């Protein structure tokens, strides 16, 4: 067991290139026992590459890495695990068919003679879950666990292998506020046990709330490393972006016009009940609430992906029949889902094909696609949204998260919708691109589109929305105007259902 403050990991001028592309060109990082260390940087700054080197997925081609006084041995995930490094990936890498106990001990199953000691695996997992404050049944299958609980299993796994250094890649990206709180408690207890926690996050409020040190990376190199007390939000953002970021929420005033979307008493008992609201031309309405409060389900029902039991959706005064995205699109609704990789994009298809996907009708000549038109459409939207890619046919898989999100936006904006529904539009993208996405959403509203935005990030909700509807456990519990909304009021409504003063 390391003593508090002891240097556990020291990376010096670490470099890595993939073919011609330089991913890291001189990364320094110092991690001490008993500290929570935030690793910040824009998408593509090299954070993931660095984590993967420590995880044993990649070798570094330059620089030195020391674990305490010993050299770090790169090469394989087994080797990293043996050296006390555990990685919790952004997308939990559990085995859904296996039991939780098995997941905790996978690759290191306890043995009694030649066979696995299941009893020990189960009691030990139960003990770890309890220690982490979440009493999951170790015999239960991993399938069906929430993301937050899956993370708990991952953390239990890290503890069971007695890791000294625990790396977490965007652990809070998919968590609700209460789950984030629970994770922070766990992180603090790891810290108290003199372990080192390195975590990557794009949610800067959390970073300042919990970390002891902040290291900022940009373009594959470390830009700054400071105790949290010696830095501030402005400085960190400046280090990440490389310039002053003037405005994260470039909200402008628009003329609010007639009602575009009217939702009346919409009910699907499994997810939401009696939801009624309106969105007007030029207006941004936010649906706030905890993850799982039914916000996404309402949006999916409006767009016709899921059916609802009763109630009605009207677009420009006319009823929109339920259960048909095709009809919804005909009525000029665009829906940008929260999971861009699974639902928003065709990851192996080119940028051009993705952008033109919903606009085929305008690109065809006598039923056949005119590729010249597709090319110019792609060019137009690349310029409008400053999407960065090399060739139009590059699979979107190769773009950064921010550029992927802009591609989804381009696809739907190209259909010139009257109503734009965006679900978590800035999840997992860096602060500069966030500002850009916000500007684009604001611009869309300025052009007279109605915008319905779902977001779990309160600063985003407060910064962008004209009106805020708060949901809790499937019910609409508060409606706040831009002027009266505060962080406290939204949280109070989202967690207790009561509108506080």
């Amino acid at each position, binding site marked *: 067991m390391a003593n508090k403050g002891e240097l556990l990991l020291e990376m010096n001028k670490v470099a890595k290139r993939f073919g011609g592309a330089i991913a890291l060109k001189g990364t320094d990082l110092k991690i001490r026992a008993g500290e929570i260390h935030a690793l910040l940087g824009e998408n593509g700054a090299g954070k993931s590459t660095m984590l993967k080197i420590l995880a044993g997925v990649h070798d570094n081609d330059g620089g030195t890495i020391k674990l305490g006084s010993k050299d770090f041995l790169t090469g394989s995930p087994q080797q990293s695990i043996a050296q006390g490094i555990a990685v919790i990936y952004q997308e939990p890498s559990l*085995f859904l068919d296996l039991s939780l106990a098995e997941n905790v001990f996978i690759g290191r199953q306890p043995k009694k003679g030649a066979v*696995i000691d299941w009893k020990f695996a189960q009691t030990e997992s139960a003990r770890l879950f309890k220690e982490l404050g979440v009493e999951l049944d170790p015999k239960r299958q991993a399938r069906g666990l929430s993301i937050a609980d899956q993370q708990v299993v991952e953390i239990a796994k890290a503890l069971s292998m007695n890791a000294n250094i625990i790396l977490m890649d965007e652990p809070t990206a998919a968590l609700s506020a209460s789950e984030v709180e629970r994770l922070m408690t766990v992180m603090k207890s790891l810290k108290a046990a003199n372990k080192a926690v390195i975590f990557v996050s794009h949610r800067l409020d959390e970073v300042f709330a919990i970390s002891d040190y902040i290291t900022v990376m940009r373009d594959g190199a470390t830009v700054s490393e400071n105790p949290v007390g010696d830095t501030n939000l402005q400085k960190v953002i400046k280090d990440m972006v490389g310039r002053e970021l003037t405005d994260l929420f470039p909200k402008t005033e628009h003329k609010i016009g007639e009602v575009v979307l009217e939702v009346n008493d919409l009910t699907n008992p499994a997810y939401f009940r009696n939801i009624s609201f309106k969105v007007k031309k030029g207006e941004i309405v936010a649906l706030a609430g905890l993850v799982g409060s039914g916000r996404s389900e309402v949006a999916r029902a409006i767009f016709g992906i899921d059916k609802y039991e009763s109630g009605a959706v009207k677009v420009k005064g006319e009823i929109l029949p339920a259960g048909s995205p095709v009809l919804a699109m005909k009525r000029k609704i665009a829906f940008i889902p929260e999971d861009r990789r699974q639902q928003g994009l065709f990851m192996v298809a080119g940028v051009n094909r993705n952008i033109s996907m919903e606009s085929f009708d305008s690109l065809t000549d006598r039923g056949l696609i005119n590729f010249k038109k597709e090319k110019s459409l792609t060019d137009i939207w690349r310029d409008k949204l400053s999407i960065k890619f090399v060739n139009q046919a590059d699979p979107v898989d190769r773009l950064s998260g921010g550029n992927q999100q802009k591609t989804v936006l381009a696809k739907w904006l190209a259909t010139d919708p009257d109503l734009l529904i965006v679900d978590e539009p800035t999840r997992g993208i860096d602060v500069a691109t966030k500002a850009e996405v916000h500007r684009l959403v604001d611009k869309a509203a300025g052009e007279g589109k109605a915008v319905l935005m779902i977001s779990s990030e309160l600063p985003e909700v407060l910064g962008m929305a004209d009106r805020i509807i708060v949901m809790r456990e499937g019910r609409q519990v508060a409606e706040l105007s831009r002027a009266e909304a505060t962080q406290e009021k939204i949280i109070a409504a989202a967690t207790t259902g009561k509108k506080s003063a």
Partner: protein
Amino acid sequence: MNFLRRLKPSSREASLALILIVAVGGTGLINPRFLTGDGTRDLFTSTSVVALLAIGIAPIVIMRHIDLSISSTVGLTAWVVADFCAKNPDFTWVQCFIIGPVIGIAVGILNGLLVAGLRLPSLVVTLGTLYIVRGVVYVVSNSVDYNAQEMPPSLLDLGQKVFFGVMPLTFLLVIIAMLLMGFFMKYTKAGRDAYAIGSNPPAADLVGIKVFRRTFLAFVFSGFMAGLAGVFYLMRFAQVDSTAFYGQELAVVAAVVIGGVTIMGGSGTVVGAVIGALLVQTIQGGLAALGVDAFWKAAVNGLLLIIAIYADRVLAVRSEKSLLAQRIKERV
């Protein structure tokens, strides 16, 4: 017995066994001979080759791979073993049980290196080796067939050996292999790693599972079992030509899937695979007893396969729903 209790079947195998019993009973109602010692023995004898292969490929399917080359390997080993015996009259069953598995292992090593070493998709690799190995059979056999008189009497005797009037030696070996493999898959690290690899292949790499070694050895094991099945083939039919066991690979895959091994990997058991093989055979016997034209055999097999997949889907949807309900309840 402690050993048996440890293999405690999941509800999935239990319900399959129940379906099997119903099918056997139903067939027995139409044709009482089916329930006699002779009938049972025939069922076991006719299932043993497919069941042995099912045990061989079950771990591969659990790892989200497939081995289509097995039927060609059965043909190759059966012919080569017969050839060796014809040219060496002093050979007994012992040599057969060595030569067969060795040939099978050789094919398994080839498959394993291509799939695990080069990380090529197993569907395509083993489709390739299916044709290659069968091609080799055509070339080396040069249209020569072998019959009972060229085979070691000791081998054919073993093929006829029956315990208690119902249990042929071949199927007893199948049961032993099933128990050993069932235990191995459930209680050893290698077995559990196989489930992990099939459940989430990229994550298996990240948690430090030796994916290459496990995958390679699974293909070697499947080759070994196919080699053994080639010898079983000779014991049962006492004759072989270059088309022996031609095109039977998908029947084995079907038995495994009917037995509850998910084609997407990560779940299923060896015991289920063997029950699946028995079930397919029983239903064939039942159709014959009903006087259904043998031409319908293939179509019924296909129907059975689709029913099995549908049952899986229904179960999956139901468990998903109950998990969702549980989560909603936990939240409130």
